[in-house]
Every structure is written in structure tokens, then in C-alpha cells.
């Protein structure tokens, strides 16, 4: 499938078009995402970001074009999704939520136990493992959904604005936590956000999308070394320059989306 002259991409999108009745949500997007890349997608509201991620996650069909995620190593799931908004099951405890993916793929009990306790620990939720979601704050619930995705140990993570519903302090804290978690084994991540700052803070590569119908406007490399510190980054002149540059690409699109 892969072109012989290039390193194989972990995710390959070719001429993707998605149409809802007479609305074109995604229009001819082609994209290669290399293994281990933290890839962010920014774009104005309604430009088709969620649609694209849902197609990657097999929750939506394509109208035309192809989408491929490389086959995982045996015994590992291909991908896990983190959804836009509250998506952890209110009828399960924190522990059961975090264990969900592993249980669905019938992982052995000791693996479930080890992985869940490790990820609850890394997300600071160990003390709350017996709690139900309604007993948690919004930030803690979002951490549960992160733990649920990571504990499943997939090769690719698909995240749809995981922090957009949070207040700024919680968002900053969770961004740092996500970076720290991600550094451990550098999974391939597709991260959707409408925040340019967030994209620059987290990602290696950023795709800017046009207002609806969503197309690729540009792809930017973020050349900031890792590990990154979310707070110190903001003081880095290169950070401001990159953010400013992306706003240049995005400004027209946001205005177009509002028109």
C-alpha cells in the first residue's frame, strides 16, 4: 500500500471527502502522519475536525477517498479515542471506566489490573478509583477519559478537543500532564483543538483547516524541543512567533466561518 520511496506513515488519508446530505464537511484532504508524531488539527468551528476524527475512528463512513491506520502489532489495539465533551460512563466507577477498553478486548485480568492502576496513578486518580463520575469535578472526569484511552495501550490516540470544556487552570495542568504521559512512549497522536496556543504547546506538526468545507490550509512544523514545560513555553519568543504565524493562516478562515 505504501509508496516504496517513503517511510511508511502510521496514518494515511487520501483525497478524503465527507458529505452530509448537501453539506460538504471535509473536502479532499490528503495527509500522512508518521509514527510517533503528535499531530494537531486546528480550524474554525464547524470546519469538519470532529468529522475527520470520527472517520479515522471508524464511527463515520467516507463519501470518497481512503483512510488508513497502519495495522497494529499483535495484541495491541489500533487506536483509542478521547471524545469532545463528557464521555465517561456515569454508571461505572473511575476504575471500571479506566478498565473499559482492556475489558472489551478481553485482556488478561492481571494486565488490566496493572495497567489501570498505573494510569490512574499517572492521572492522579488513584484515591478516586471507587468514585462515580458525578462525584468528580469536570477536570477529573476528563482525566478519567484520558486514563481510559491510555490504559488501553493503543498505537494511535485520537483526541477531540479533550480540554476545551475546562477552565484555564485545569487546562494548563492537564496539558502538562498529557505531555508528561505522552513522553513515556510517544504514541502517534491526532489532537483536535480550536486553540492555536494549545496546538503549538503540544504538537510536532499542526494542520490548519479552512472554514467549511474543511480543506487543508497549511501544515506547520513546531520546532520546539521536548520535553516541554507548558508555562515556560509561553515565555519563549519562538513560541509567540509560531502562534502568531498560525493566526495569520487562520484569521481569514475564522472570519469566513463567521460570515
Amino acid at each position, binding site marked *: 500500500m505504501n509508496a516504496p520511496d517513503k517511510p511508511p506513515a502510521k496514518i494515511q488519508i487520501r483525497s478524503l471527502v465527507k458529505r452530509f446530505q448537501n453539506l460538504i464537511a471535509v473536502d479532499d484532504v490528503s495527509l500522512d502522519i508518521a509514527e510517533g508524531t503528535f499531530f494537531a488539527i486546528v480550524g474554525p468551528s464547524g470546519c469538519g475536525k470532529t468529522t475527520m476524527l470520527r472517520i479515522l*475512528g471508524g*464511527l463515520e463512513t467516507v463519501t470518497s477517498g481512503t483512510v488508513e491506520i497502519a495495522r497494529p502489532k499483535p495484541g495491541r489495539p489500533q487506536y483509542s479515542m478521547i471524545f469532545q465533551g*463528557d464521555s465517561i*460512563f*456515569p454508571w*461505572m466507577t473511575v476504575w471500571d471506566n479506566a478498565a473499559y477498553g482492556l475489558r*472489551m*478486548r478481553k485482556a488478561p485480568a492481571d494486565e488490566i489490573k496493572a495497567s489501570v492502576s498505573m494510569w490512574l496513578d499517572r492521572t492522579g486518580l488513584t484515591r478516586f478509583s471507587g468514585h462515580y463520575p458525578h462525584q468528580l469535578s469536570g477536570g477529573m472526569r476528563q482525566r478519567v477519559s484520558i486514563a481510559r484511552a491510555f490504559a488501553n495501550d493503543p498505537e494511535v490516540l485520537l483526541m477531540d478537543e479533550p480540554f476545551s470544556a475546562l477552565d484555564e487552570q485545569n487546562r494548563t495542568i492537564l496539558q502538562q500532564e498529557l505531555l508528561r504521559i505522552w513522553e513515556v512512549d510517544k504514541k502517534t497522536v491526532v489532537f483536535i483543538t480550536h486553540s492555536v496556543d494549545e496546538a503549538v504547546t503540544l504538537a510536532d506538526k499542526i494542520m490548519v483547516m479552512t472554514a467549511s468545507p474543511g480543506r487543508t490550509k497549511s501544515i506547520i512544523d513546531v520546532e520546539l524541543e521536548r520535553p516541554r514545560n507548558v508555562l515556560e513555553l509561553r515565555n519563549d519568543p519562538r513560541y509567540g512567533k509560531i502562534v502568531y504565524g498560525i493566526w495569520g493562516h487562520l484569521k481569514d478562515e475564522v472570519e469566513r466561518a463567521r460570515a
Partner: protein
Amino acid sequence: MTNRDTGTPTERNTPRVATGVDVGETQRLSARRRERLMSIGSPLGLLLAWELAAQFGLIDVRFFPAPSTITSALIELTRTGELIEHVAISLQRIALGFMLGGIPAVIIGISMGISRPVRALIDPLISATFPIPKSAILPFILLIFGLGEMSKVVMVAIGVFFPIAINATAGVLQINPIYLDVGKSFKASKWDTFRTIALPGALPFIMTGVKLGAGIALILIAVTEMVGAKSGIGYMIWSAWEIFAVSKMYVGLFTIALIGFAVTFLLREIERWVIRWKPDP
């Protein structure tokens, strides 16, 4: 009202508002206590009036035997074990009927909620049969299942099936679709989707169906046992009427009301446990 001529409107109003709150608060509290006393007192008062009226011959004790007479009938029926036996067999029929009707109701109801084709297939059948008064099909059930245990159990089963199935479907349909997407993205099998998402998500609604079903089950078991049975609390009431043992009839009524209370209480406790994951309303 009397000091119309003193002070400005503000001076007059300020203290009055303040005391008004205090007085209102204490009045409300004592009013609540009074209401509670009244709600305990009214049945007791009625019983007392009834007893006196019966003792002094103001009412016809053939129709309204004195509470004391009913109480001694209750004691007698309990002592001989007759009452317990009838209650036990009725409860057994209700329990079996609940399982026979409730389990398929949950499975079918949830399947209808999950799958459009299943809904399209079964919904018309349910809509068409639901309005038939369940007591009206009793002769039909007796014809098919005879006078044995099965006919009673089936009547209860039919009665509880509808509210549970209909609520289960509604319960699944109100589940936020994002949870089904989560299941799909974690590759949950059909059975796992049912077990981990549809069932727990619909459970609050299903419990409502179960509570409705319990009320219907009580009505149907009484009616069924009156017509085609030689045991059970409904039979006891009916046979007491036939031999004009009025006190015994009242004991039966009292008992069935008590069963109703007990079942309601039990189901409320079960519900509280089953949906403990819900925030307190």
C-alpha cells in the same frame, strides 16, 4: 394596620418584613408537625369512629364489622396458617410472573432501543396489544393454560411485560449517543454493548417500568385468583365473599394493601441501590 399615621412607609415596613420571616418560619414548622399528626390521626380517628359506630349499632356490622372483629379474624387466620399460605402462594405467582414477563421485557425492550429494524418489527405488535385491558384476556389465558399455576403466572407476566418493555426502549433511546460511540470505538461486541451500556443506561427507566408493573401485577393476581384459583389472597377474598365471611374479606383487603406497601418499599430500596451512580436529585 392601626398605626397608619406613624412613620414613613420604609420605617413601617422594615421591621414588619423582618418579623414576618421569623413568624412564617415557625408557623410553617408547626404547621408541618400538625399535618403529620393529622395524617396519623385521621386513620386512627376513622377506626375509632368505626369501632364505636359498630358497637352502638349505628352501622350494619354485616357489611362493616367492627375493627376489633376484623382483628380477631386476622389473628385467627394467622394462627391457623391459612393467611400465610394464601399470601405465600400469591407472592410466588407474582415473583414467577415477574421473571417470566420481566426478563424478556428487558431483553426485547433494550433490543428495540438499540436496533431500528427490531424496533420497526416489534413496535407495531406492542402498540396494538398494549391497549387491551389485561383483565379482559383472562378467559383466554384460562382457556390456554387451564386452571393450574401457569395461568396465574402468565397473567402477571403479561401485565408486567408491557410497562417494562416500553420503558426499557425509552430508556435506551434517551442514552446519550456518545456512550454508544465510546463502546464502538473500543470495539465492544454486541453483547458487551448490551451489558455495559444499554442495560445500565436504561436502568433508571426500567426501574420505573418495574414499579408500574408491580402495581399492575397486584391487580391482576387478585382478579385472576378470584376467578380461576383455589388458593391465593384473591381467592381468599372471593371465597370469603361467597360464604359471607365479611371479616375475613376485610382481612384479605388489608393484607393485599400491606403487600402493596411492602413491594413498593422493597422496589424503592432496590432502585436506590441499582442506580446509586446517579447524582441525588
